[in-house]
């Protein structure tokens, strides 16, 4: 397998799903077909993968003629690339399939569409050649380069610096609250995760609750998420690291799909129902109220979370924890902070800015 003149990794920002990509195929009778893709995954130096959900004609065409073309655009430079590809294989099991399935499941869950999105297969394409499309950009308009951000400063030494800073936190913290705050501050300052939360599993193993948060206009402590719900809940359920590159696109894409699937449904499931089990919504609303009962409820919720985190700290709470963070993409890194209450896209219905959500779970 020969090396590509333009390495796949060098155009990785094209695969952040900020700009939809195109997949062109051709039937045996010479009739072309073009479809938009939300996600393309880099598998290795010469392969990319695409999720097969609703493909019909594309799948038919590829069965007859495995040659295809992907068109991808760099969201920052706006350079466009054409990838000459050939269908190599379809996977219906294994790590790649599971990764794609988890992301799909998370997107479906955060928009109330679990069961509608079904990953039929991961289609793996061999990349035969990559060319930059000539004439895409005007020469007379100067390039608008992405602004400097915390993320752009990440280099090979970043991990070591982060590790050293976290070690310093562990050494220097006298109590759990300080420790958690410092760990999240380190994630922000060293890795650029401006919005983050640490969540623990409750005693019943049904919900995660937040014991620390950073970057939100209101503290997230006491927020609860049901296991399997939204990006965070899905990550906790599957115990897989997950990165959702473009929450905004996923949120617009999903309701379109459900309207086709269930045209008689009266409520768009992307809008959380009043009974949404994400308690944070309820909690933060009531905490904003002037009503003393609301304030009491908020205080009680926080106190319970603090108590739980203290027990966990003391080793009396065997638990799985989740660290959830939301980092701005390079394009939006320098944007003024937006008032957001939670990292889960379900909670940020008014925000459709390109945002990257990333969650992970760890046994502690």
């Amino acid at each position, binding site marked *: 397998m020969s090396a590509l003149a333009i390495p796949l990794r060098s155009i990785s920002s094209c695969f952040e799903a900020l*700009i939809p990509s195109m997949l062109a195929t051709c039937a045996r009778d010479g009739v072309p077909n073009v479809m938009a893709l939300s996600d393309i995954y880099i598998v290795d130096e010469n392969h990319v993968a695409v999720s097969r959900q609703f493909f019909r004609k594309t799948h038919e065409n590829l069965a007859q003629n495995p040659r295809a073309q992907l068109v991808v655009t760099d969201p920052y430079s706006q350079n466009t690339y054409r990838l000459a590809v050939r269908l190599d294989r379809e996977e219906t099991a294994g790590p790649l399939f599971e990764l794609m399935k988890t992301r799909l499941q998370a997107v479906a869950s955060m928009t109330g569409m679990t069961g509608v999105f079904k990953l039929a297969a991961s289609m793996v394409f061999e990349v035969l050649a990559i060319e930059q499309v000539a004439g895409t950009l005007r020469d007379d308009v100067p390039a*608008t380069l992405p602004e400097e951000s915390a993320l752009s400063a990440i280099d090979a030494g970043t991990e070591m610096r982060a590790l050293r800073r976290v070690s310093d936190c562990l050494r220097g913290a006298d109590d759990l609250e300080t420790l958690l705050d410092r760990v999240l501050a380190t994630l922000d300052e060293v890795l650029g995760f401006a919005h983050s939360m640490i969540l623990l599993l409750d005693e019943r193993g049904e919900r995660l609750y937040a014991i620390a948060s950073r970057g939100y206009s209101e503290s997230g402590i006491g927020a609860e998420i049901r296991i399997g719900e939204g990006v965070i809940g899905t990550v906790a359920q599957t115990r897989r690291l997950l990165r959702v590159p473009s929450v905004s696109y996923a949120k617009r894409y999903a309701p379109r799909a459900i309207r086709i699937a269930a045209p008689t449904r009266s409520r768009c499931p992307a809008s959380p129902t009043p009974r949404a089990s994400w308690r944070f919504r309820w909690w933060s609303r009531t905490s904003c109220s002037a009503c003393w009962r609301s304030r009491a409820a908020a205080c009680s919720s926080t106190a319970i979370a603090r108590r739980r985190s203290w027990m966990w700290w003391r080793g009396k709470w065997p638990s799985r924890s989740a660290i959830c963070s939301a980092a701005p993409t390079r394009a939006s890194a320098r944007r003024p902070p937006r008032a957001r209450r939670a990292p889960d896209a379900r909670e940020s219905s008014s925000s459709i800015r390109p945002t990257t959500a990333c969650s992970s779970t760890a046994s502690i």
Partner: protein
Amino acid sequence: VQGREIPEELVPLLDSGFGGFLGTASADQVPEATRVRGARVDESRRTLTVFVPTVQAARALENLRVNPRVAFMFASVITLQAAQIKGETIAIRPCTDEERALVERHMRAFIEAVESIGGPAKYLGRHACWPSHAIEIRVAEVFVQTPGPGSGRPWR
């Protein structure tokens, strides 16, 4: 090619700042997707003209000389409503000055649409849309392309 009309509900979409690509294929069936910068529907709605930036479309124009069959996919940037028109090319020519105004209007509408959804609109000003070629297409079939289980079905 047995013709059909473009559904009336798709005409406003084709007159808006949609995102679109034209699919062509070479004689040996290698597909090619080229960005479309505007479209104009004929009064009969049985033909339409799409505009493609000439430099980017060099290979597509070459393909059309040997294989006139095309697929034109277009989608609303805001709602993601999408359709695909399949048909045959009946004419290829450089755009007129009048069409240039249409192409530039489309580009402005496209940038506005991207901006309205919080997309990286400030980077789009660099996109070249001129000089362009006009490709006239006789419509044969129209398919639903909106994301979802109905995608790929003929448009009723």
